[in-house]
């Protein structure tokens, strides 16, 4: 293998690599044995603790309803945040300063605040000033927190998606006499949405992960909080953590793979302008990349 750091290995490098492999393998084995030993010592490997997961009650009573709540909250948040984000993203590109300025402020404000704070606030506000049942309140609070935060993030995605299009697109639209609003609606936005799809799917991973916060901090009955009731019923904390973590990993892995499949497909496609916004582009939404003059602000979604 030749990379930017290493040339194709010669005889000496090959010997050294083999030695490193052996040493690293020994370390890995040691780690696995250490974990196994710790699990064994605390009796966490007993079949009785893992058996519930091979039977249906653990799934139908605890895990699946929890997973359904997780997915409901994530889907609701995405469906509401996307149009909201589109509005703010386009507003931030406006030619009018009094539209651009306030929307930029709102976006940067909500990007700078932890999503947990938004959830706690929404939860308390609904508790005092709205007439919801407890379950409704918890779901709405989680969704509100997620929407406020992710609308701001998606607004930046939309803005980056529009700015990533070749300049010729809007120039050609103006040349054939389209108005600004028509240019945006008919020419830029449809292409930008296509270019953004991979980034949007990747953002879904962040949303799914953030629903877990609602479970722990405001009692929303999503996957992580049903894990607690499950562990209390079967007395298997470690096993339940492993299974729940696996569910999250599989779910998010499917979403990530879908995003990168979309990205590859869009990059290959001859119809588009070739502008594609991937998850990696989103991690570095900096002024240099998006051509803006606003500064990065407090982005950072992981």
């Amino acid at each position, binding site marked *: 293998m030749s*990379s930017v750091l290493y040339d194709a290995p010669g005889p000496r490098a090959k010997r050294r690599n083999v030695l490193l492999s052996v040493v690293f393998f020994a370390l890995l084995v040691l780690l696995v044995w250490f974990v196994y030993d710790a699990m064994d010592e605390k009796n*966490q490997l007993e079949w009785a603790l893992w058996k519930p997961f091979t039977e249906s009650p653990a799934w139908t009573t605890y895990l699946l309803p929890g997973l359904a709540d997780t997915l409901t909250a994530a889907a609701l948040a995405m469906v509401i945040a996307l149009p909201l984000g589109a509005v703010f993203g386009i507003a931030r590109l406006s030619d009018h300063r009094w539209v651009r300025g306030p929307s930029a402020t709102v976006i940067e404000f909500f990007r700078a605040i932890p999503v*947990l*704070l938004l959830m706690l606030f929404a939860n308390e506000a609904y508790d005092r000033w709205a007439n919801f049942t407890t379950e409704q309140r918890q779901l709405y609070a989680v969704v509100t927190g997620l929407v406020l935060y992710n609308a701001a993030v998606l607004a930046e995605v939309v803005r980056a998606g529009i700015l990533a299009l070749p300049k010729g697109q809007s120039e050609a639209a103006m040349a054939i006499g389209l108005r600004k609003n028509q240019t945006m609606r008919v020419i830029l936005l449809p292409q930008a949405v296509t270019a953004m799809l991979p980034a949007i799917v990747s953002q879904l991973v962040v949303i799914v992960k953030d629903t877990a916060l609602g479970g722990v901090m405001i009692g929303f009955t999503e996957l992580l909080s049903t894990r607690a009731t499950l562990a209390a019923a079967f007395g298997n904390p470690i096993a339940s953590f492993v299974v729940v973590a696996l569910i999250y990993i599989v779910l998010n892995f499917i979403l990530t793979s879908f995003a990168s499949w979309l990205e590859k497909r869009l990059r290959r496609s001859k119809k588009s302008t070739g502008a594609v916004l991937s998850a990696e582009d989103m991690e570095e939404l*900096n002024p240099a990349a998006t051509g803006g003059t606003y500064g990065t602000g407090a982005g950072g979604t992981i």
Partner: protein
Amino acid sequence: MFDFLSDYDNPTLLGAFWMTVKLTVLSGLGSLVWGTLLAAMRVSPVPLMRGFGTAYVNIVRNIPLTVIIIFTSLGLADVFGVTMGATDFKVQGFRLAILGLVGYTAAFVCEAIRSGINTVPLGQAEAARAIGLTFSQTLRLVILPQAFRSVIGPLANVLIALTKNTTVAAAIGVAEAAYLMKEMIENEAQVLLIGAIFAFGFVVLTLPTGLILGWLSKRLAVKR
């Protein structure tokens, strides 16, 4: 209007934000070290190390931070008796939170560093080898100076996200900003004011970091 603030002394408002800052700085340093090690593994010529690095990043990235933080408390501490050398419950929670944050954030630091190394064109290393530089000279004089500059932007984003992610530590009882906000907002009448105070605190913590590091990364960017 602000009278109620003096009713809270464990922690005080400033104390809670100071805890947030401590969590951010300590887990930032820890994840920088562990993330750099992981990145070194991911780009190493040893397939086994590359495999381990890839597996670690892909597993940890896809687990919610909340699951990891709760696991450090209910799993590591309660079942396996990992107390991180602390006798006090509060100190133990603090150290466990840092452990969880480091383990999680390191995966993102690793990806930021790796993508930084990948932005250096292959020709740079080939040219360096062609003029007879050794491995360490190539790394020291050619690759790392370029990689380091393009890493600042992504790393700044990770640092900002880490600042916001420290709020998850409230889930295991670490008395930081979100913990105090939850306590205040449930007991006081001024919900809006409390929300505004804590939001302002986080804007103050994250916005300057983003602006300064964003400016720095733009200024130091390698023009290609």
